[in-house]
């Protein structure tokens, strides 16, 4: 049975490579019973989207520009 530490690692790896069938299955079972890891899994995709917006945001008014000045 997968624990949260293992499950979060697999969540992160799923952004890097296709998961093996067994891994995928074990992860799904874990996510079904663990809300913390379900949130974590969603946050992985959010984090990727945020990172990709980050450089863009710095180009827009009121973005990181202000932060760098203070």
């Amino acid at each position: 049975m997968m624990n949260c530490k293992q499950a979060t690692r697999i969540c992160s790896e799923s952004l890097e490579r296709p998961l093996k069938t067994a891994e995928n299955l074990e992860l799904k079972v874990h996510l079904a019973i663990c809300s913390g890891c379900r949130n974590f899994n969603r946050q992985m995709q959010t984090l990727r989207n945020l990172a990709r917006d980050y450089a863009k945001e710095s180009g827009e008014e009121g973005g990181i520009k202000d932060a760098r000045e203070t």
Partner: protein
Amino acid sequence: MTEVSEAAPSAAVEQLIDPGYLAQLRVQMLKFAQIQLGDPYQAEDAVQEALIGALKNAGSFARKSALKTWVFSILKFKIADIFREQKKLIATSAQEEDSDEAAFSGLLFKDNGHWHKSQRPTAWEGPQGGAYSADFWRVFDACLNGLPEQQARVFMLREFIELESDEICNRLNLTTSNLHVTLYRARLRLRQCLESSWFASESAEQIAGEIGL
């Protein structure tokens, strides 16, 4: 990228040669480049070349994106070029790093590998489409700066420069599993930082003030 535009001085050029604007843009670019390259001189070169490239090609700036976004995309290409030219060996003290990571992991997970109750991830409320406030990006910036150097570098190459895993492994002389572990650790830290500094806080502005932003 090498063609010099014959067009009349565009608004983009005027904005780029405005000393105040340029100085501010350079500072941001330098910081970005330095995190990637880890070397102030190389960062300076990359920024210089990116700005020259931007000025030369200002005629082709299509106004589809903000000027800064466009200049940053030129900078990303320059940084990727530099990595292509020289495979970078990064000496890391593996043992030291591992003990830091074990300590961090111990904060998040119990001995049985399940979340400590206080650390269990919560649902993040917030816009998903890039409409976060300036305060949010300040916190994001601070969290990113809080990552160990190698984690920040790998994360940024993967997620900002959007290099493929293979390419990062080649350039940084990492094995695929090193890369995956490093990305995992970076993500674990980043999400923990974002959650505690932003998503879990009732008053984000207040927190931003507290952490000195």
